[in-house]
């Protein structure tokens, strides 16, 4: 029986022994049948499960990666203490799901964002997520010469890194917070970071890569790069 106001957790696709250990370590009580939980713990994540979790979670969706309960508990404890909506997934899951669409749809439902605003936020979050996945966690560099052959080589490098757990199991986090006028979305990776000075946002029309940061700058009211390039903070008008 859950006590009123007690922080709660539900699990979807997670072995009971693992979810119980996460709940215990994070100080979260298993939710009763009635109310929404603060944290939804997920594993074997596909789009359908992620969408369900983002709808059910009052604050955070956390993937259990490689059955590591201690790691998931630390993330769940941290994210459940912050108001807003957050999701923390492995790089492999972030790549395999439509994370930005599902996250921003859930955010849009909560905040009542209109369709055009929701699409703008979705594109900015998508670009930030792709950068965090490819250039942050998977450490695949930008296209060198922008030919079709380079592009194919780049795609093959991404696919290869996705099969290497040292890269593919790194965490990716997206979290949103808001007030009456603005919504802030933070996208954070666990890669080695960047020389922030080198991250010029480019918009020469013929460029085939490096346009993502430019688009984010156009779509968001304010953009900041923090934590040595591992964290992108975007602020939007609601």
């Amino acid at each position, binding site marked *: 029986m859950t006590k009123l106001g007690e922080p709660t957790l539900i699990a979807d696709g997670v072995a009971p022994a693992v979810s119980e250990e996460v709940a215990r370590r994070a100080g979260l009580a298993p939710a009763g049948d009635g109310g929404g939980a603060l944290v939804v713990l997920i594993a074997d994540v596909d789009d359908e499960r992620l969408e369900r979790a983002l709808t059910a979670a009052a604050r955070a969706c956390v993937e259990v990666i490689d059955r590591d309960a201690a790691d998931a508990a630390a993330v769940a404890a941290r994210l459940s203490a912050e108001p807003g909506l957050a999701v923390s997934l492995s790089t492999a899951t972030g790549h395999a799901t439509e994370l930005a669409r599902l996250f921003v749809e859930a955010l849009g439902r909560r905040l009542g964002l209109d369709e055009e605003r929701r699409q703008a936020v979705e*594109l900015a979050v*998508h*670009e930030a997520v792709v950068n965090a996945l490819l250039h942050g966690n998977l450490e695949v560099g930008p296209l060198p010469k*922008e030919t*079709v052959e380079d592009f194919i080589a780049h795609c093959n490098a991404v696919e290869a890194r996705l099969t290497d757990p040292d890269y593919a199991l790194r965490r990716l986090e997206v979290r949103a917070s808001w007030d009456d006028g603005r919504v802030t979305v933070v996208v954070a990776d666990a890669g080695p970071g960047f020389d922030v000075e080198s991250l010029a946002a480019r918009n020469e029309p013929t460029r085939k890569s490096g346009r*993502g940061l430019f688009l984010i700058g156009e779509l968001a009211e304010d953009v900041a790069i923090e934590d040595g390039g591992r964290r992108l903070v975007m602020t939007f008008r609601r």
Partner: protein
Amino acid sequence: MNHDCQEQDGQLSVRLQGRVTYADHAQFRQIINQVRGATAATVVVDLAEVEFIDSAGLGMLLMMRDTAESRSASVVLRGAQGQVARIIAASKFESLFALED
């Protein structure tokens, strides 16, 4: 994303549908091969049923353009709606492609 290509009367029509993103590189490779192998002087990319495109998707359109121009064909982007039309405008593609409603 889904796509289909048809060559008829001197025109290669490439119809894209759904979400065009960095995850679609395998299909994109097939499209590039179609553009390379075609004899049509014009490549028309039908975007009317594309609901979302990202910066990598724009990069793929640019590579189609490079591939077409290498055999002196031109590329028309047709029917972009909503978010797709806005990102194409923000990226100043009117200087690179013929844009049609």
